[in-house]
Structure formats: C-alpha cells, structure tokens
C-alpha cells in the first residue's frame, strides 16, 4: 500500500506533466541542442555538419588572419560584447536613478489614488516592446519630435538615431517599468516609523535616504536591477530598430549568424555565452539578495 | 433509533510525521458515544480533540485502532461515503453558491431528485429559522447567520452523526449563549448524535449529556457534567474544569492532616500522602484550619479571598459580597466540608 504522501506526490507530478512536457519540448530541451550545435561545423548552405570542433568557440573571441593564419583578438566581436555590457550597465543605472523617485512617489500616494498610479505605470509595462521602441524612434529621428521642438528654439537638428545613445535611450525607456515595480513592492512594505525615528535622531533628508531608505529596500533594488540588466544584455529589437546595422549588441550579432553570416555554430556558441553571462548575473543576484536578507 | 447512531472508538492512535520528529496527536483513545446524545470533547488546544473529530469525519485515518458507527467499521471509509457530516469552525460555506444551494449541496451530490432537495432545503432552513435568506449569497450574511446555514447544510442529508468543530468560538458572548440553547434544541428535535468540540469548559458543562476531557492526546476522564465537575479524576481535570485548590495532606483513617489542622473526610480514601482538591466556592468559614489572608479581590457578586495555610499552601475561597472584607495579614478560620473534597494522587 503506497503511503498517502508518495501517492500525493505522484498525483502532483501527473498534473504538472503536460505543462512540463510542453516546456521541455519547446523551451528547455532546445537549449541543450544549442549547446551541442556550438561544437559543430557550419554547413555549406545553412545548418551544421558532423565534424565536432571547438572552432566556433574560438571564433567567439579570436579571429584568424586570412593571410598568415595567426590568431588574434577579434576586435569587432569584443567591441560588441563591450557595448552590450556597457549599455546594459548604463541602462540599469539610469532606470535606477529615474525609477527610485517614481516608485517612492507611487508608494507615498494616498491609498485611494494609488491604484490609479499603479495602473498608469502598468500600461507601458504591458505595451508591446516593439511599439515602445518605435515610439522612441518617432521622437529621436531626424524629423522626429525632439528635433522639431529644438527647431522652434532655433537649435540645430541632433542626429541621435543609429547611435549608441539612441539604443541607450530606447532601452532605458523600455525597461524602466521593470525597475519601478519591484522597488515599489519593497517601498510599500517600508515602515514609515523608521523614517520618523531617523529624523528624531537629527538625520537630514539626504542622510535618511542614504542610511535608512536605500539599505532597507535593497532587495527591491536588486530585483529591479536584475529585471533590467538581464533583458538589456540579451536585447534584440531595440538595438535593431534604434541602432541600425552598425551598433550591434550580442542579440543582433547572434541573429547575424543565422541570417547573412550563415555560421550557425558561432551563433549557437554566442547564445550559450549569453546564457552563461545571464546565469552569472542571476548568481550574483541570489548572493546579493541573501546578503540583503541577512543584514535586513 | 439509537443503535445505528452509536459511535465506538477503539484504541485509536494518530501519529504525524516519522522518526524523531513524529508527533503523537492521539494516544490509544477509546470511547463510546451513545446514539442520540450530545457528546462533547473538551480540552485545551493541542490536546487532540480536533484530530479525533477529523478521524470521525474521515479526513484522517488512524495509525492504529478502529472506528465503528453502529455495527459498521468505518475506519477506512473516505469522508464522502460516511454518513457523518461536519460543521466546520470556519463554516466553510461555498461563497459562489446561494444559501439554498449550499444547504442542498450534500443531497445534490447524493443524486437525490430536485423536488426532494427543494423540500428538504426548505424544511432545514425553517428549522434554523433562515427561510427568508434562501437566495442570498454567503458574503451578505452575518457570522451568526452563516453559522446557522452551516448547521442546516450539515443536517440536510440526515447524517447519523453530526460533528461540530468549535462552531461557537467566533461569536460574541450574547450570540454564543443563544446558539448554545439553539443547538441543544436542534439535537433534541432531530435525535441525531452530536459530537461537539470545544475548549470552553463552561460551554461543555452547559450543553453536554456526557463529556470527554482530553489532554496531550489522551482521554483524562469521561462522564456527565456533574461527575466531571464534582468528582474530577485527576489533577488535570480538576484544574481545567472550574477553579480548584490543591492542598497537600496526609490521610490516616478518615482524617486528613494538613500541617497541624485536621479535616474529617466522609468516605474511605487511600491512605498516606495525597492532594485534596476543593473548589473555592466550597470552602467555608469555620474553625478547622486557620489561614492568613494575603489579598482580597472584589468581584462584584462575591469576594475572592487569597489566603495561606500554616504549611505555606495557597488557598482561594469565595465569600458573599456583603460580608465584611477580611484585611491582608489578618487570620481567618476555614472549614473544608467532607463532601466537597476530592482526593487526588500526590504529585
């Protein structure tokens, strides 16, 4: 006779099985295939061929001179990696600086109005990523709103489109709600009596911010940072629309290998690299969160 | 009428978990509940009374032991095949169904025809005096009204036994007293065996035909309210039901010695060192023992006097409010009437 606990567990797994099966087939399983593909040779027209090799992995970082066969750092690749990391970090920083006051503002609204403000911040959150990117495009392109307004003041047209800055603006815009919402959740749980205690002990507003607010809402900051940094690192749509073909990030570079570049193994290797980078970032997140909880 | 509604629990034990962290919620519990009676399981939280109730309902299976309903062994029957229904502590009324549909739910699950269900629902609702609420939703009812609907729902399928899990604990005092009378009336009218769980000893004494006092997974005493109150079997029962003084004494023959004082007993009792249990309201003024007053508290309808016997044991007694207030430090003479003394084992 099976004991009731084992029976219950089997039952649970049976119920979860269909969902898990679909996920394994259409989400988790294919990741393993990518890993395998990164160790194969590019096929003649597309796809891959049998000989297993680490060539693709070499190509990620190094390039072979076509004349004398020497290996050197693949500058173009490294530029792309650096740009991706740089823009992701900057995006996280900008969204933090803009997001903190916004989250604080929403959390300090009277309860009846708060639902309205949350609704207002949620709409951009659920709006299509592409639409929001196109919207930024409308603003910063050469005949866009920004230049039109500048024109009224006699200032010259600014050529923002297809630069790193454009991509940065786009990503900050698109990912801002992801930073605001977790921080809002943390601030919502914040005990205002801590503030009163700090003021009672002669703290200035800035000191309160630095020594009381930020440490206590740290889990929210960490969560928001991860929710911005990870998608930024793997961004594809925004750099494509706002960066043109020149200012590629890892996502665009990966796509290139499956499009014009026709080097599937390299694309696969880059995808695995991105996955590792994300896993590292998540590991840092878990450590930072555990640290925050220990000190909190 | 009553054979089929007798409940017999034989040596039931219930263990949760395994190994060193296992909890023994019930330890070899046996009791027999007469059909058609109002039986109460009484005890502090954690004593196992709710576990026993769940065993009777079928939500738990005993680790050891049997449960018999009339002649039938129901130990292995799942709850939806046992002719026993429960009134839950939180009422557990279905929020998306109207009052009428809630009450008729059991009958619907049993596949009774719609006409029969409607008639029975109407009868149940009038039994608990909720006829005009038939189409209301649960959320629109007050706590007391929800309670009555929960009752009607559990009674509708005509179970052989009705289990009530602390149903009155969420109600305010006045409503509680009203419902106690209601429940008693319902039990008499339907003739169903009621098994009632509570931690409130006053409630138990008021309503029950018989009480099982439980503690730490064991039955401490089973008896009528009078038996339990006047003749507590051990220290736990004496302390849990009403208030009690516990005075160490030495019995020789029919005399109990407390220090230098002597008290006459009216029955043959075990000899040697014992504990005398006597309720504060039974202690009389007299000249058997002299005590020193420590404190007097005015209770409105009585005076509560806390005193100290010569051997240092504390004693509490009640005096009519009109009496002169004994001052702290003064001496008073006390008497412990034989019939009011209960002799318990020494610690």
């Amino acid at each position, binding site marked *: 006779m099976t004991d009731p606990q084992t029976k219950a*567990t089997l039952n*649970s797994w049976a*119920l*979860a099985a269909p*969902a*898990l099966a*679909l*996920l394994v087939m*259409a*989400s*988790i399983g294919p*990741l393993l*295939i*990518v890993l395998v593909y990164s160790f194969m040779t590019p096929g003649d027209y597309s796809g891959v061929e049998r000989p297993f090799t680490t060539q693709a992995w070499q190509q990620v970082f190094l390039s072979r001179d076509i004349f004398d066969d020497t290996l050197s750092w693949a500058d173009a690749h490294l530029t792309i990696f650096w740009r991706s990391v740089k823009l992701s970090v900057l995006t996280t920083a900008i969204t933090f600086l*803009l997001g903190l*006051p*916004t989250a604080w*503002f*929403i959390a*300090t609204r009277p309860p009846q109005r708060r639902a309205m403000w949350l609704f207002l911040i*949620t*709409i*951009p959150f*659920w*709006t*299509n990523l*592409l*639409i*929001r990117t*196109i919207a*930024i495009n*409308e603003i910063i*392109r050469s*005949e866009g*709103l920004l230049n039109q307004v500048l024109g009224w003041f006699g200032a010259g047209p600014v050529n923002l489109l297809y630069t790193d800055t454009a991509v940065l603006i786009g990503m900050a*815009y698109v990912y*801002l709600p992801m930073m605001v919402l977790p921080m809002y959740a943390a601030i919502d749980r914040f005990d205002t009596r801590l503030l009163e205690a700090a003021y009672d002990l002669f703290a200035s*507003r800035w000191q309160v911010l630095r020594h009381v*607010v930020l440490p206590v809402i740290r889990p929210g900051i960490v969560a928001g940072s991860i929710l911005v940094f990870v998608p930024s690192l*793997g961004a*594809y749509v925004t750099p*494509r629309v706002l960066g043109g073909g020149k200012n590629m990030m890892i996502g665009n570079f990966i796509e290139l290998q499956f499009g014009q570049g026709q080097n599937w193994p390299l694309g696969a290797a880059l995808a695995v690299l*991105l996955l590792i980078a*994300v896993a590292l970032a998540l590991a840092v997140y878990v450590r930072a969160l555990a640290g925050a909880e220990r000190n909190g | 009428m009553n054979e089929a509604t007798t409940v017999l629990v034989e040596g039931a034990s219930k263990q949760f978990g395994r190994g060193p962290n296992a909890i023994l919620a019930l330890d070899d519990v046996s009791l027999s509940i007469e059909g058609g009676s109002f039986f109460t399981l009484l005890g502090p939280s954690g004593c196992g009374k709710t576990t026993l109730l769940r065993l009777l*309902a*079928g*939500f738990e299976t005993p680790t050891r032991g049997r449960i018999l309903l009339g002649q039938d062994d129901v130990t292995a029957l*799942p709850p*939806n095949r046992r002719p*026993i229904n*429960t009134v839950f502590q939180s009422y*557990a009324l*279905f*929020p*998306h169904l109207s009052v009428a549909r809630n009450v008729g*739910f059991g009958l619907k*699950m049993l596949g009774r025809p719609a006409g029969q269900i409607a008639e029975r629902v109407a009868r149940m609702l009038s039994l608990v005096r909720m006829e005009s609420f038939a189409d209301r939703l649960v*959320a629109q009812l007050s706590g007391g009204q929800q309670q009555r609907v929960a009752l009607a*729902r559990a009674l509708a*399928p005509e179970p052989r036994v009705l289990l009530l899990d602390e149903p009155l604990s969420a109600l305010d005092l006045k409503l509680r007293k009203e419902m106690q009378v209601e429940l008693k009336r319902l039990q008499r009218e339907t003739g169903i065996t009621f098994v009632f769980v509570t931690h409130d000893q006053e409630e138990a004494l008021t309503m029950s035909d018989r009480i099982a006092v439980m503690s730490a997974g064991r039955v401490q005493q089973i008896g009528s309210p009078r038996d339990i109150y006047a003749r507590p079997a051990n220290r736990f029962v004496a302390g849990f039901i009403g208030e009690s003084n516990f005075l160490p004494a030495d019995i020789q023959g029919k005399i109990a010695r407390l220090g230098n004082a002597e008290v006459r007993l009216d029955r043959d009792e075990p000899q040697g060192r014992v504990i005398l249990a006597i309720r504060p309201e039974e202690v009389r003024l007299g000249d058997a023992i002299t005590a020193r007053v420590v404190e007097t508290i005015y209770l409105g309808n009585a005076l509560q006097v806390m005193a100290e016997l010569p051997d240092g044991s504390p004693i509490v007694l009640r005096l009519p409010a009109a009496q002169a207030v004994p001052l702290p430090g003064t001496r008073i003479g006390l008497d412990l009437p034989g019939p009011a003394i209960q002799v318990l084992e020494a610690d």
Partner: protein
Amino acid sequence: MARSAFDAARLPGFAAIAIAVFVLLYLPIVTLVAYSFNGGESVAVWGGFSLDWYGRAWANETVKAAAVRSLVIAGSASAIAAILATLAALGIVRNRRMKGRGAAYMAINQPLMVPEIVTAVALLIFFASIRQVTGYQGLGYLIAAHAAFCIPFSYLPISARLEGMDATLESAAADLYATPMQTFRHITLPLLMPGVAAGAMLAFVISLDDVVITEFVKSAGQDTLPTYMLGQMRRGVSPEVNAISTMLLAVTVVLLTAFFIINRQFNRRKS
C-alpha cells in the same frame, strides 16, 4: 494649533522627478498615436487629422493576414497555456510536501529566466530539424513556442488564486458526499475561474506582443503583426505602422482594464 507640516515620507525632488518620468513615459506613445492620425503623406509635416492610414492598413492584405495570424496564435496559445497551467497549479500548489517541488517550479518559470534571443535561436535550430524530417510547415511551431513561454505568465494568477482559496471548502464538499471529480466541477473550478480567466488574458497579451521568438521561429510568409512591423521598420517609419501600433495598443489597454476590473471585483467578493 497648526498641525505639523513635516511629512516624514517626503524626499526632496522625488515628486518632481516622478512626474517628469510619467510624462516622459507617455510622451513617445502619445506622439506615436498622434502621428497615426497624420493626414499628410510626409512623416514630418502635419497634414491635418485623418483616418487615412487606418484605412490603408485595413485594406492591406498582408496586414490583414498578419493580424489574423496573430489572433489565431494568441488565441490557441493562451487557451493551451491556461489549461496546462491550471493542471500544473492544481498539482503543485495544494501539495505542500511534494518531492522536487523546487525543480518543477523552476521548470515552469524557465522561460522567464532565459533571454528571449537564446530561446529563439534554440527553437530555430530545433524546429528546422523537425521541418526537415516531417515537412510540416504550418503554424504549429509558433503555437507550441508561444504556449510554452506563456505558461509562467498564466501560472502566476492561477496559483495565486488557488493559494488564496480556503482549503476547507474542498473538505466540506467531501464531507457532503462529493467525489473528487464532483468537488472539482462544482467547487474548485468555479472558484478558480477568475484566476484562469486572468491567466488566459495575460497569456493572450504576451503572445500578441511577442517579437523575438516569433521572428526566429516563423517560416517565410508567416508574419504576425509585430514581425510585420519590424520588417517595415527597415524602410523607416511610416504612419501605417503607427496606425497598426495604435490599434494593438488599444487592444492591450482594453484587455488590461478588463483584467484590473475583474481583479478588483473578485477581491471585493472574497469571503
């Protein structure tokens, strides 16, 4: 005696920045919507209010086909995701001591933990091989892919609703002679419905909006609205794209509002 005006919760400059942020958040979207009503041909000059571009978008056969495809995929994927997520939630949420609970939970949320481009590439590779073997070229791949990444989004409101449900209700039903199937049909499912509806709606919006995975998994000619728009962006903006964007936006806002209202109503009626 005047009440103290010291507000402990006020931090200097924060309100101003917050308001500015809200303005900046909506400005681009409003601009986009405004431009969609531009009567003129040129994107720069305002040519009067007109619904021309909407008309042109509606008349465009490619756009219509893409719109239908988007709706078909979103409808199928959200239905599948909602059903699968409900089953999974029923298994996982109620069983506190389920062995391997953490692993199951991680698997369900996996799509949220991996960057979309990686999943997109992985599916491209995987489905390419399947296409070669079976020759099937239909929408099935897209629907399967969408359903998969919609599962975690559906799971969230369903499991939340299940956890908030009074567990004794199901015991009460069993006490009143209901079999497990009857309990599910009469008690669990009706009470779970708002969560399932919310899960389906969320999945619908997520699927409708997806760009990256769709872009990589689709075969030629299988454009959805977002991939169509992405393709158009290669040639620079056109008010037609703005018009389509505005319509998509309207659908999202309507669904979101419905979601909020249902949520509020059921939070009020919780007993």
